């Protein structure tokens, strides 16, 4: 599904943030990416989604057999790449439902499916809302405007559920959440686990991984993956802290 080889990327001021990432994620797998602040976790998410301001200097990313980096951000999205934002963006005056329907129809068109009309869309929304325990009221408000931190993150998960991506990247979706919100986000992720879908869960803490059992855990430090293992690696990190990285071979 996703094949990252020797990926190097810089930000505008020339600093190299990613320094040779190698990562392979197969369909059906959930991988967790952990690491201290500044290790390059969010940069990795941004580069995969195609955000401006990052310069890939070396390496390649192959997604479903094609060169992901050659696609524009919206093409990537229409090809099934979804990024749950660490800081979801407010769009004043744009109804959340309207936004979601526009997005869903854009993705559906790329898949060769017909647009959903208002009735069909509403039906699809209702079904997902129930699972994610999201309030109707949230949908009638402007996109992310005045949402609490928890509401914003739940809205991201809800969008993900509606758009049914092939590759979902969750960028610190768990940060700043209370335990109930965390549980709901985890539920959303677990509901979406599917044999034809891969997920990359980026997190700073191990607590989300108590609810979402990853197939693999990778530890990122200074722009490289320095450790990989099964979910017990997360538990160990939690116990010993990121200080344990100092013992690891660089």
């Amino acid at each position: 599904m996703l094949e990252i080889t020797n990926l190097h990327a810089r930000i505008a001021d020339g600093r190299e943030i990613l320094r040779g990432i190698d990562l392979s994620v197969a369909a059906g797998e959930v991988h967790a990416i952990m690491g201290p602040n500044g290790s390059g976790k969010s940069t990795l998410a941004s580069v995969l989604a195609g955000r401006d301001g990052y310069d890939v200097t070396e390496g390649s990313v192959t997604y479903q057999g094609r060169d992901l980096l050659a696609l524009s951000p919206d093409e990537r999205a229409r090809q099934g790449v979804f990024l749950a934002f660490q800081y979801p963006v407010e769009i004043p005056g744009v109804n959340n439902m309207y936004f979601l329907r526009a997005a869903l129809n854009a993705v559906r068109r790329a898949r060769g499916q017909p647009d959903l009309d208002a009735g069909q869309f509403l039906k699809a929304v209702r079904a997902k809302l129930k699972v994610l325990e999201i309030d109707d009221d949230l949908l009638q408000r402007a996109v992310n405007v005045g949402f609490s931190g928890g509401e914003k993150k739940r809205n991201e998960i809800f969008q993900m559920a509606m758009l049914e991506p092939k590759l979902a990247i969750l960028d610190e979706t768990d940060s700043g959440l209370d335990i109930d919100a965390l549980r709901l986000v985890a539920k959303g992720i677990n509901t979406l686990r599917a044999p034809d879908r891969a997920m990359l869960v980026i997190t700073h803490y191990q607590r989300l991984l108590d609810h979402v059992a990853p197939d693999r855990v990778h530890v990122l430090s200074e722009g490289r993956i320095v450790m990989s293992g099964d979910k017990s690696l997360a538990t160990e990190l939690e116990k010993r802290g990121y200080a344990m990285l100092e013992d690891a071979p660089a």
Partner: protein
Amino acid sequence: MNSSVTAQTDVRSLTGDGYKYGFVTDIESESAPPGLNEDIVRFISAKKEEPLWLLEWRLEAYRHWRKMEAPEWAKLRIAPIDYEGATYYSAPKRQNAPKSLDEVDPELLRTYEKLGIPLSERAALAGVAVDAVFDSVSVATTFKKQLGALGIIFCSFGEAVREHGDLVRKYLGTVVPPGDNFFAALNSAVFSDGSFVYVPPGVRCPMELSTYFRINAAKTGQFERTLIVADKGSHVSYLEGCTAPQRDENQLHAAVVELVALDDAQIKYSTVQNWYPGDAEGKGGIYNFVTKRGACRGVNAKISWTQVETGSAITWKYPSCILEGDNSVGEFYSVAITNNLQQADTGTKMIHLGRNTRSTIISKGISAGRGQNTYRGLVRIQPKAANARNYTQCDSLLIGHRCGAHTIPYIEVRNPTARVEHEATTSKISDDQMFYCRQRGLSPEDALSLIVNGFCKEVLKELPMEFAVEAQKLLAVSLEGSVG
């Protein structure tokens, strides 16, 4: 330009003697020669077979205009306009008009397609010289009958002068006096045609009145004149313009719109202005210098202006409300877009004279490309306007880094019981917003359109339904090429 007053403005015409026979220009000719003097004004009036009072009214306006200078206070860069070189009356036949759609700029046709303009209408909008482009004559007649049964008068200005002279004479120039400003004075002297509406007491007009119905009836030309009178307790909603880009060979457009609302009457006036803005270098666009003003003359009267301004190279326009009647209400909802080299200096004036008068101003300015967008608004509370209230919200949105947005509020309060609120914001479409939309699968164009429509939502919802949908598409088309 005062230096160029010619000898043609002679003593004879000043004494008024020459009304019938004093023409320098042959009345049989189809067009007046270039330039403006009293004889040209007489020529126009005679061509239109107007009564003497209207000729005198025009002449008075002309004499005012002669003494006036074009305003320079607006934040606009305007190339000098050659008023002496312009022709102020020409017959509808236009030699230069394209003969068919094949001769029309393909870019314009592409825009029509995007806006979903029916094929049958495209020719008329593009200015093709076809006699009966619309098969709308019978439709118009049906509507006229329906309106006539209610006593509503809706006709061309010329017809109104002939058929309802007393009504026109009673109200014409009472809101925008002939010497009000440079462009209004020019319009008053040489106006070609326009619309007249009268709604009798207690009548609620059953349909949106639209200039669309009379597109065949009158080629309104560059100096349009509109007068709408809503008698006591009546309601009327009027739509002006259309979303399709309209071409015109006249660069200068100086229209005047006057609204009069008597006791308990309501007038809603909606405009979508999409005159040709010129090419990407700003060449060839229309100068739209309009004076629009409404008077709430009676108690509890209400006048509401809604405008979506996307066209023209230069827009100079301040639809205003004079709130004379106690408890009267004025509203102004505006979206103004400037892209490429377009300039707009637009806003409103709310003049509070009566007690408990209220006004609301919602202005959304969008600048893209190298566009310059200025909101200029006056809120004046006069001494007798006890408990007057105003709320103003003025938001500017910038797209790119070469455009400009300016907000110039004038607030004059002469009554201590008044409450005036002004809120203003300026924001940029952020890269984050664009990226967020694109990450959800929207193309850059769709993302921009979505964000801009959200920004304008409070104004768009004031438009009549069918207009609102068109306006949304129009915003998207107007901003094409401003991202990427």
